[in-house]
């Protein structure tokens, strides 16, 4: 397919859609699917047929629409009405009401802060296209950015555009994407690789899964643009094997893109070729770390190695390798299409663009949100999230998963950007955001994440392997009431040691949840140790001495 044909396809598709009177998008992403949205789709298809409306009404299987807690969601275009908690039995009523007023009892209001405070780049197509349709993606401007890059820009110009945009890695580290691309572009050698990190392993994170399920072509287009910019012809997507639906959609998208000539050999009639291969993980969190991931693709144990050399210079099979996160790649087509300055104008000076967060825990509206950087935590939790359920009190929000920290009440008005989060002892991380209320015990939370790090430590370096186990033992002692103040001192010492001496990011950041809870909730630790009491009433204190000396 040449760029002209691409344009024609987009036009033809838009024309065809104009002939329809209505289009129904039923969310087919994992959360709604689990709420039986597949049965809803079937019911709609049957109802359309029964009414002989095949010519004028299309039923499409679309991607995530955000409010997963109210699924299955159905959007009716062009009216723009959103229905919530739709059952197969509702299909008839919705169809019969088309053209008239919406079915009141099912309407999900969209003029609420949940939608109005959001700004969609990565999720712009999510819920607006059939995620399995290449044509739908193209009709919404898909692959036009790749066409623009290949025909109107040099690789160097593409790198410059990404640099101008100020985009930073969304996989956790926040490294400048433009800088990484230019390092790989400059690295000597004919053979280079591009890898998409879709190993999303942070507990509490489900952004990447949703992007892959809802808009897989977006990630492929981003990768192809990156490959052109850095001079690579082969790419890998390393995806968590626990995501069967994302894997299916990706494999299907790759096949369709190759058939359409927007991926594979001589893309869009140019001399540029780019092959993409899908690789499945096998259940090891540490494989999300870039050097471990590379080792896993090579067919070895997924253990990290010391850096430098960085993958940009010495990566897959020793070749220069660009490795970026799913969400990072998903931003690229929009940057190339609208320009780096456009992207840089969104968000804050040092943290440009938007961030997708997975909002979960003790908050009313759980689900996926995309917000401009610099928004405050309060806006996210109260305006978009709808606050804490059951009239309970907010206690802390955990960002960055096992590498991050807990942010207390007093920082709710802080802007969400890389630097501010780091300042208060947490990190942006990959985008998990877990809200906790007064019923959560902060020591137990710390113990919880340490348990995760202890089991996921690959065992290659001693500080991480032994240190996380030791810290976990100490935290368990605190939560069962058998710890002393000496144990607390030892815990603090270990935090410092493991942080300073571990080989990879897993160990280096493992103490963060402990450090941050000690910083803001030290009184809870002391209540456990000195008074043998869990203020939140979570820990059972089974091993507390009978006679308590207060």
């Amino acid at each position, binding site marked *: 397919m040449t760029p002209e044909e691409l344009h024609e396809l987009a036009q033809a598709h838009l024309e065809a859609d104009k002939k329809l009177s209505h289009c129904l998008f039923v969310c087919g992403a994992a*959360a709604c699917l689990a709420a039986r949205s597949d049965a809803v789709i079937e019911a709609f298809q049957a109802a359309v047929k029964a009414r002989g409306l095949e010519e004028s009404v299309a039923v499409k299987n679309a991607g995530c629409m955000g409010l997963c807690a109210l699924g299955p969601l159905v959007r009716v275009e062009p009216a723009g009405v959103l229905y919530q908690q739709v059952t197969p039995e509702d299909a008839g009523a919705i169809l019969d009401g088309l053209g008239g007023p919406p079915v009141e009892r099912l309407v999900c209001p969209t003029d609420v802060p949940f939608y109005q405070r959001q700004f969609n780049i990565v999720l712009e197509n999510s819920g607006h296209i059939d995620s399995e349709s290449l044509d739908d993606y193209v009709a919404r401007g898909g692959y036009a950015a790749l066409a623009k890059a290949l025909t109107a820009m040099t690789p160097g110009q593409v790198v410059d555009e990404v640099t101008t945009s100020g985009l930073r890695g969304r996989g956790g580290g926040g490294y400048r994407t433009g800088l990484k691309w230019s390092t790989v572009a400059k690295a000597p050698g004919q053979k280079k690789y591009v890898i998409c990190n879709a190993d999303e392993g942070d507990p509490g*994170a489900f952004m990447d899964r949703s992007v892959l399920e809802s808009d897989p072509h977006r990630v492929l287009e981003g990768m192809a643009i990156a490959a052109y910019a850095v001079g690579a012809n082969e790419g890998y997507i390393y995806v968590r094997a626990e995501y069967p639906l994302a894997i299916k959609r990706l494999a299907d998208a790759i096949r369709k893109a190759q058939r359409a000539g927007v991926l594979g050999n001589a893309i869009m009639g140019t001399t540029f070729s780019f092959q993409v291969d899908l690789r499945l993980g*096998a259940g*090891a969190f540490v494989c999300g770390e870039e050097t471990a991931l590379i080792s896993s693709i090579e067919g070895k144990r997924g253990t990290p190695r010391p850096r430098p050399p960085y993958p940009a210079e010495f990566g897959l099979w020793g070749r220069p390798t660009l490795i970026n996160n799913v969400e990072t790649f998903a931003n690229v087509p929009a940057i190339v299409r609208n320009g780096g300055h456009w992207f840089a104008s969104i968000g804050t000076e040092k943290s440009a663009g938007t961030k997708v967060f997975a909002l*979960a825990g003790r908050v009313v509206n759980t689900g*996926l949100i995309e917000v401009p950087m610099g928004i405050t935590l309060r806006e996210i939790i109260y305006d978009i999230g709808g606050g804490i359920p059951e009239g309970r009190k907010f206690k802390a929000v955990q960002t960055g998963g096992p590498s991050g920290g807990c942010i207390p009440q007093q920082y709710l008005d802080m802007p969400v950007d890389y630097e501010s989060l780091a300042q208060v002892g947490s990190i942006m991380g990959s985008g998990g955001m877990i809200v906790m209320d007064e019923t959560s015990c902060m020591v137990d939370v710390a113990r919880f994440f340490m348990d995760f790090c202890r089991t996921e430590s690959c065992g290659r370096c001693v500080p991480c392997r032994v240190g996380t186990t030791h810290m976990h033992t100490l935290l368990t002692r605190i939560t069962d009431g058998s710890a002393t103040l000496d144990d607390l001192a030892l815990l603090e010492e270990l935090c410092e040691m493991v942080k300073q001496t571990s080989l990879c990011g897993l160990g280096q950041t493992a103490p963060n949840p402990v450090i941050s809870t000690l910083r803001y909730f030290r009184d809870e630790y002391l209540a456990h140790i000195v008074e043998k009491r869990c203020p939140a009433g979570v820990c059972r204190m089974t091993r507390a001495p009978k006679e308590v000396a207060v």
Partner: protein
Amino acid sequence: MAWKATDIRGVDVEAQETPALSEQTVSEIRALFDRYPTRQAVLLPALHLAQAQIGYLPPKALLEIAGLLELAPAQVLDVVTFYEMYWRQPKGRKLIQVCRSMSCELCGQVGLLDAIKAKLGIEEGQTTPDGQFTLIAVECLAACDKAPVVLVNETLHEKVAVKDLDEILKPE
């Protein structure tokens, strides 16, 4: 042969005549050879294919894969033991995976796991004697907004309560 292997019934695998890998699995593995610069790179996909065919990875299958990929059996075992998703024991017809991560714990997973254990009469990592169920606790299944969740084979059950267990744990 680097190690002497017996299968689950204690039968010496080298004495068994029929190969563990089906012809189709072998040809699917071979089809991957051209995709990578090394044979070793085929190891993880090959293990996934073998497991999909057999349900787990018996020693004999590992030896056959080692032979196909020209690797030492120790290299294969080294990789198999590293990754959690490779099973070296047969698992039940239904694999019950209970999420034990943060959001699920905040939303009531603890009582749920205990209830499942009591109902099936097994601990984490065990299989019921009739071979119906294997129970494991896993890290975040990326459905935290619907916590607590339980994955049964490829079906995700969300917002699971103890009262739902009869339905979820129906034997086949």
